């Protein structure tokens, strides 16, 4: 039975008692008035009887809590502006943390939708933060040698060309070794999974078996069961749809969505004409294992250490890769529960920093809330004192104040959940790249809601406890006598203002550091002229051209573009810039003294003649490739740093650079001129691989007569991007009919997505910093203003006794400003100490640049002075006569 119903029952029971007693007495001849009086006297204190009776229900505590809750709710409703300020202040701090946590959860903590994901181990090949996959031979060797896992599987993201009635569409998918579904313990929703017997060239007796993702099955085939058993044309091969994967499983790479999964052997069609499976130098496989019972990631790592030497040998018997470019790389084993996540590798550190900054914002919001609560409580000092004097237990008052805050926290929680979601969604939207939109699901769910709720309650209690204690400890006699001044004195002397200022300085310093780093990355000369530069990635596989035809198509597309109206220059590129790829290249040269300089890290870019004009990279010496230049001329252009590397004397022009791994004899007699090319020019340095790294050493060469590439990029310099896009579409349709339409994107957009991580950090830290300033200003203003209002009388007396106006103002503001200074010094020191944690995210900026700290402190000082202005003027305008008359 509900408490309210029970209460009404009791009221009725007592009323019936009274009626019967009244009735009896009146039957005996008493008048109504007499009887009523007698009955009431006989019954005693009705309210007390009810209260004691209710006590028998064992609900008395609940009863009191209910009363207090209603009282607290009324108190909150009485000052709606204050309540809204507290709720918003809490919601903002918690919401910011929820957003960052949602993202962290989705990117770092989320597990693959397979049974017992915690048993999965991921094997990587790592050099510092760079984690490339394993090569096919390395996977085979590791699978044979390791003993920690029951079995290993290999996965690779892939893109398939799906041919439906002549319409070719690119579909994201994945390649999985035949044992994959067994290791993952994944059963298809419909149909059957493929197994080892299907993972052979040609797909074995049944032909290639494909599994579809649930989402793609529903969107592309409307969930039709008849799809199973049907045939798809992928990359020119017929594959049979064997089944549909369980919902949620979209491959082993977090953030990318595989719609079709095929056996690993299908790579012969994907990577044609150069399959990678036996290639010792192609590191393209993500390798996972399922731990045997009793084994852990640590024991897998220990096992890895003992077998690494053998695996390296078996994976590359000639040691051209393992002993050369990949020497600094090592095999690693780590938890594979979340799949392989490029986002995680990239964002783990930034997210950690953002968590810290969001934590500081929460501290700031809590401080602000605490100030608001204190202000409210101090305005109620008299009321609380009166209640204590009348016998209210201190515990009850304590609880009452806490309840008020918890009611506001509930409102704050609702706001924070919404705010966190919106913020997380907009952040997730910033993670994409050109042609790649990772699906980071940040919708609120159990773990995130629990996090938000826990944080809100902690924040509310954190801010409420001190106020509640203060109220419950107040000295009623003193408070009643002084008329509500006790709290403010102590509040102003609290830790809140210096803490707010210190946190703000830290946040602003972080924002300034990240901002300076971003500006450096963005505006430092990259060697490309961004303005008017457009890029497009092309794929001619679907046009089904022979190698010679492809080479011809490459040339004709570029020449067709160059001739199109509105296009200043167009060029062929083997790989677009800012890709963050590494290649195991090998070039060497002999300088004037006969010293051999070998470079295994140079980036060989195959370009057409118009490259430098299109990209805007300047030539420092020599000449660009001539109009009629061809690969047969065996010429090359070096970047300035490469020229200096090979020929330290600065005489690169006209010298020879050799390609290949063969070591030259001392006298150079065994150098094969077939492999050499003559340096005809030196170009300015470019940050080709990544804006985050130093300039990439480059060697530019022309493509061979017969060396076409179906996958390539074009660079277009044009003042009119829509004209250029139309020209590109027209040229591709004419020269390579059947090829998918390429998308043209401005180079500036590539730079933007390349700097996604930095942009996200800058935007968030700037937002956090701005809010910190605002909150600090509001907090300080509120505190000072209240101080002035409550001490008007005192200031009046001081003035009346002869104090000058400045002295009176100083008496009010001096203490507060001293605390601001304390906060500035503390904040500067904290920021200085914390900057080390950010060092890995900063480019071209010294984390301890004194200008940053001076700037942060300066900004805060100006804000604090601005916040002081109005209260100071108010204090200065106090008229002693009026102030004294007011009381």
């Amino acid at each position, binding site marked *: 039975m509900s408490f309210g119903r029970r209460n009404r*029952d*009791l009221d*009725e*029971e*007592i009323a*019936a*008692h009274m*009626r*019967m*007693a009244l*009735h*009896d007495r009146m039957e005996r001849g008493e008048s109504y008035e007499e009887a009523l009086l007698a009955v009431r006297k*006989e*019954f*005693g*204190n009705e309210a*007390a*009887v*009810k*209260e*004691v*009776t209710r*006590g*028998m*229900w*064992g609900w008395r505590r609940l009863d009191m809590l209910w009363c207090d809750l209603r009282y607290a709710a009324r108190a909150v409703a009485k000052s709606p502006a204050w309540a809204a300020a507290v709720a918003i202040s809490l919601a903002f701090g918690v919401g910011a943390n929820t957003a960052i946590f949602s993202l962290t959860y989705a990117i770092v903590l989320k597990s693959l939708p397979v049974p017992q994901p915690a048993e999965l181990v991921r094997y990587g090949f790592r050099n510092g933060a760079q984690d490339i996959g394993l090569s096919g031979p390395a996977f085979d060797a590791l699978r044979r040698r390791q003993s920690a896992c029951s079995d290993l599987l290999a996965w690779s993201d892939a893109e398939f060309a799906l041919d439906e009635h002549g319409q070719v569409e690119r579909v994201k998918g994945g390649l999985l070794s035949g044992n994959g579904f067994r290791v993952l313990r994944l059963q298809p929703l419909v149909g059957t999974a493929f197994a080892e017997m299907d993972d052979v060239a040609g797909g074995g007796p049944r032909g290639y078996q494909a599994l579809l993702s649930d989402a793609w099955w529903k969107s592309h085939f409307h969930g039709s069961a008849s799809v199973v058993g049907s045939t798809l044309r992928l990359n020119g091969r017929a594959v049979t749809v064997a089944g549909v994967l369980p919902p949620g499983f979209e491959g082993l790479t977090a953030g990318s969505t595989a719609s079709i999964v095929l056996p690993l052997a299908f790579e012969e069609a994907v990577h044609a004409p150069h399959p990678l499976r036996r290639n010792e130098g192609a590191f393209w496989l993500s390798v996972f294992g399922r731990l045997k019972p009793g084994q852990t990631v640590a024991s897998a790592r220990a096992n890895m250490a003992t077998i690494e030497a053998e695996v390296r040998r078996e994976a590359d018997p000639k040691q051209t890769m393992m002993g050369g470019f990949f020497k600094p790389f090592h095999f690693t084993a780590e938890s594979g529960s979340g799949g392989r996540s490029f986002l995680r590798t990239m964002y783990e550190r930034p997210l950690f920093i953002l968590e810290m900054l969001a934590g500081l914002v929460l501290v700031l919001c809590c401080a602000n809330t605490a100030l608001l609560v204190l202000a409210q409580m101090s305005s109620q000092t008299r009321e609380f004192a009166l209640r204590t004097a009348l*016998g209210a237990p201190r515990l009850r008052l304590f609880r009452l104040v806490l309840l008020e805050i918890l009611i506001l926290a509930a409102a704050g929680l609702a706001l924070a959940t919404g705010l966190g979601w919106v913020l997380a969604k907009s952040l997730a939207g910033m993670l994409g790249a050109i042609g790649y939109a990772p699906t980071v699901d940040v919708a609120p769910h159990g773990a995130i809601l629990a996090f938000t709720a826990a944080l809100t309650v902690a924040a509310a209690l954190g801010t409420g406890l001190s106020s509640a204690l203060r109220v419950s400890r107040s000295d009623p006699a003193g408070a009643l006598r002084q008329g509500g001044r006790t709290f403010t004195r102590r509040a102003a002397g609290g830790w809140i203002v210096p803490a707010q200022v210190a946190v703000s300085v830290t946040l602003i310093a972080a924002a300034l550091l990240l901002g300076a780093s971003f500006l450096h990355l963005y505006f430092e000369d990259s060697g490309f002229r961004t303005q008017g530069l457009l890029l497009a990635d092309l794929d001619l596989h679907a046009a089904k051209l022979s190698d010679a035809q492809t080479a011809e198509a490459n040339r004709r597309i570029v020449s067709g573009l160059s001739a199109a109206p509105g296009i200043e220059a167009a060029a062929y590129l083997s790989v677009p810039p800012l890709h963050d790829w590494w290649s195991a290249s090998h070039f060497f040269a002999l300088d004037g003294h006969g010293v051999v300089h070998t470079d295994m890290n140079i980036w060989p870019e195959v370009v057409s003649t118009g490259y430098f004009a299109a990209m805007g990279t300047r030539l420092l010496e020599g000449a660009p490739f001539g109009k009629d230049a061809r690969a047969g001329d065996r010429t090359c252009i070096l970047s300035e740093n490469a020229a200096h590397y090979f020929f330290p004397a600065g005489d690169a022009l006209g010298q020879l650079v050799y390609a290949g791994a063969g070591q030259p004899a001392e006298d150079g007699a065994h150098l094969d001129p077939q492999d050499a090319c003559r340096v005809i020019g030196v170009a300015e340095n470019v940050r080709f691989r990544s804006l985050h790294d130093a300039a990439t050493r480059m060697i530019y060469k022309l493509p061979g007569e017969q060396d076409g590439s179906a996958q390539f990029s074009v660079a277009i310099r044009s003042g009119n991007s829509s004209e250029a896009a139309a020209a590109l579409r027209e040229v591709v349709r004419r020269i390579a009919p059947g090829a998918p339409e390429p998308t043209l994107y401005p180079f500036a957009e590539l730079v933007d997505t390349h700097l996604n991580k930095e942009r996200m950090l800058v935007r968030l830290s700037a937002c956090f910093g701005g809010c910190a300033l605002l909150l600090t200003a509001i907090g300080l203003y509120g505190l000072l203003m209240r101080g002035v209002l409550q001490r008007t009388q005192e200031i009046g007396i001081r003035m009346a006794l002869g104090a000058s106006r400045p002295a009176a103002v100083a008496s009010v503001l001096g203490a507060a400003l001293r605390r601001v200074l304390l906060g500035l010094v503390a904040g500067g020191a904290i920021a200085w100490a914390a900057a080390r944690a950010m060092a890995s995210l900063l480019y071209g900026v010294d984390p301890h640049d004194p200008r940053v700290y001076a700037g942060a402190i300066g900004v805060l000082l100006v804000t604090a002075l601005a916040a002081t202005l109005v209260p100071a003027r108010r204090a200065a305008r106090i008229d002693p006569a009026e102030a004294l008359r007011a009381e």
Partner: protein
Amino acid sequence: MGKAEKYESRIELLQGTLDMLILKTLQWGPQHGYGIIQAVRASTGDVLQVETGSLYPALHRLEKQGWLAAEWKQTQSKQRARFYRITAAGKRELAREHARWTQMSKAIAAIMDRAQGEPV
């Protein structure tokens, strides 16, 4: 709060006997609170007066312990009232209380009678 504590202490004093009196009275049939007061008063010739401040808490406590059950019914004078009825567990409790009371009153009587006859 102060008032409530005073009432509670008065219940404490009466508790043992009041519970027994209520259970005994209800043995003759269901009755409401007012009826119980009247019945006790009548059967003791106005000697024992049960306070409402003790009765209602006691009724609700006994109900919670499962010795009484309550339901809303019409009185003879067509009034709606909450009638209490003794349960099987209540009857067992009454038997226990009664036995204890008999034992106690005998013991007290023994002391009081001897005190009258010969000085201790």
